[in-house]
């Protein structure tokens, strides 16, 4: 092995344990994470509809889980994932069109997305329960 090809054991970059988190990268990771979570959630929701077409006994299984504490937490989590991914997706569409790339704008739109997603989660819950 020539000197040039010899492996050099230098530390690899970036050093994750000392890496300073930024809003922009965290939101980017969160966009993917919520996207994956929503994909898994979609299979659950599809199964919910399939069971509703089956029989009351099968459906009771889903209703039992949906109305449990864990079911409520899952619903709240799903709502936040959906609204976060939706809002940040709109942010992405603006980037696709060429707007909002200045660092200041990227941070501002990031915080707006987080705020709107949280508000939409609460508001949709209230509106949904009102309409029952």
């Amino acid at each position, binding site marked *: 092995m020539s000197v040039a090809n010899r492996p050099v054991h230098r530390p690899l970059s970036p050093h994750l344990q000392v890496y300073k988190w930024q809003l922009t990268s965290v939101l980017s990771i969160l966009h*993917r994470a919520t*996207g*994956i979570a*929503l*994909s898994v959630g*979609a*299979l659950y*929701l*599809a*199964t919910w*509809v*399939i069971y*509703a*077409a089956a029989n*009351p006994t099968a*459906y*009771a299984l889903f*209703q039992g889980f*949906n*109305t449990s504490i864990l*079911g*409520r937490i899952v*619903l709240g989590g*799903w*709502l936040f994932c*959906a*609204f976060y991914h*939706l809002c940040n*997706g*709109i942010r*992405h*569409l603006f980037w*696709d069109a060429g707007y909002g790339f200045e660092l200041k704008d990227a941070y501002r739109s990031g915080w707006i997305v987080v705020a709107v997603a949280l508000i*939409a989660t609460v508001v*949709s*819950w209230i*509106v*949904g*329960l009102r*309409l*029952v």
Partner: protein
Amino acid sequence: MNSDLRTPLARARGLGSAREGVHHWWAQRLTAIALIPLVVWFAISLVMMSGADYGAVRAWIGSPVVMVLLILTIAIGLHHGQLGLQVVIEDYVHGDGSKLALIVAVRFIAVLFGLAAVVAVLRIGFGS
């Protein structure tokens, strides 16, 4: 002089090395835009229906407007999810075999669950 190494025909087709051009990118954006109103409607409906019993949920699914919106949400939502998961797989799975296997599996699962859910909606709506 043209410094582009592609042939004029390849440039006109614009399909690139993956031979599908911007189709995936465009489909992802188009489904995203369609999902904006659908997800807002579906999220509120989900809260509304989360505690509903068998009869109430079937009455809701079976009403004409809900049937149409629900089938749209299922089809476009799963299509969008499949496109997104494909990008994640392409980014993080590096073996050609496992990458292809995962992409195919995700697409098959999406179509299977999507079709089953649409058939379920139609069965409820048309009362069989």
